[in-house]
């Protein structure tokens, strides 16, 4: 690779990342991302066909535990961290489905 990374569609990536970007930030972000992606493209120099990927730094296998009920974190406590709740029982969110909604 020549270390170039032209044409990253920043708006599209932002959509995938669920990030609202200020429009005037897009050109500079594009430049920065292209510089960084251009840099990391150097990995293409290496022949990695026969190499196993490292997923974890330590070799781990799936851990199976006894199916014993534990003490979960109390619901009131977890709900206290939510930005908005209904009757301290549910997380409140804006309308999800289009159309006439509940009040």
């Amino acid at each position, binding site marked *: 690779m020549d270390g170039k990374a032209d044409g*990253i569609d*920043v708006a599209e*990536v*932002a959509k*995938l*990342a*669920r*990030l*609202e*970007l*200020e429009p005037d*930030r897009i050109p500079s*972000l594009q430049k*920065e*991302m292209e*510089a*960084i*992606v251009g*840099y*990391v*493209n*150097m*990995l*293409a120099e*290496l022949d*990695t066909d026969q*190499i*196993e*990927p*490292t*997923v*974890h*730094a*330590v070799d*781990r296998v799936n*851990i199976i*535990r006894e199916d014993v009920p534990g003490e979960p*974190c109390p619901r009131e*406590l*977890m709900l*206290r*961290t*939510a*930005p*908005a709740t209904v009757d301290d029982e549910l*997380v409140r*969110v*804006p*309308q*999800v489905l289009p159309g006439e909604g509940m009040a």
Partner: protein
Amino acid sequence: MMNGSDPVTLTVREASAGLERGDFSSTELCRAFLDRAALTEPKVRALLSLDPEDVLRQASESDARRKAGHALGPLDGVPVTLKDNIAVKDAPCTCASKILKGFVSPYDSFVARRLKNAGCVLLGRANMDEFAMGSSCENSAYQKTANPWGLDRVPGGSSGGSAAAVASGITCAALGSDTGGSIRQPASFCGVVGLKPTYGRVSRNGLVAFASSLDQIGPMTKSVYDAALLFDLIAGHDDGDTTSLPGDSGGCAADLAAFEEKGADLKGVRIGLPKEYFELDGISGEVRAVCEQAKETLRSLGAEFTEVSLPHTKYAMACYYIIATAEASSNLARFDGIRYGYRSAEAADINSVYFRSRGEGFGPEVKRRIMLGTYVLSSGYYDAYYLRAQKVRTLLRRDFEKAYESCDLIFTPVSPVTAFRFGEKADPLQMYLSDIFTIALNLSGDCGISIPAGIAAESGMPSGIQFMAPALQEKRLFRAARAFECARPQKEFRASL
């Protein structure tokens, strides 16, 4: 008030001994730190939050236990400061991000539980780069932390608040987290000791995830012995972290005490010098000079130096920035404005809750990394980036395995430069490249330690050296670091604030 003890240089070991002898109470100890903080914090700003009442309550509880003969252990009453991404029940945990402003942890992290069970007083929440992404603490959404050695300079990052808290003498010790050098580099910049334990040695349960396959919690302390003490305390298996390793630290502090008894020399220890590291352009003259002097000291202790090769070094940074950003983009998807943290007041429907809350809540560096991570994981690019980086990670790990066939430890600088001035590194890629000596260790999963080695001639700032060792060989690291600490020409590292 403290019977002649100076809180600024007071180590965990000395505090523990003082408390046991009854030289001072935990309340007196903590009050001395709080007084010191009232003096230095307006200048240093190491902490994002500090609740003096809560600190004194914990201290008086500790004093009551000790008085009744029920001290929870030798560290009962010793204050320790936690980085703001490590959860403590009922304490704020913002990760220095606006998106977690006002968030209060509903539970304790594994390490907080361990510290509490040992009676430690948790003192303050340390500033950091937002979500641990950065090398200077300049990415904090709330405040810039100054380096106690030079207030116009950065403390390093991302655990810069933890390092500055220890160096400014407002606490005995701190915990940080290290994903690519975030413990070791600020330790070097601030003249303190910092340990990056073997991946899986310390549970990540309750550590807000940045890059799950790289993150590790570790101690930042005023002495090597303190780092061993705290490591013993926080290491060990936890069912709450599926990557937690079986077993515990095996008693590093006791091993170190025995090592000291026997004279703490390094006869027969083979130290590898990776030629690719020392050949790098950009290592400043003053950092090279500190390293040369440290090598002399180590030689005088009986260590033998041997050149080793880590041939894939030039690819480490690229490999790291693919893996770290990919994992970050996935981990930070949870901050969606629904269950916790910031929700945009402007959002009218569910999609705009996601887009606006994240857009308004995350800072520029976090956005940049989420964007990069999303890009390298997006459809059609996975094999070219993430999978390839994981394969290169295997090559990097093999480099280390091969190197350790001919040496016991590897010696390197921690950072190519000493603490730089605010705003000096404005280009993100240049900032990333300053982590060149620390990132490979996170990719290999092995352990490493940064220890103060001297004051660099030109900048007058402290400079550390790094030892790296194979996985689970923390004892080896501590022994070398302790021997060096006893023999280094500069005995004391004390910032004159």
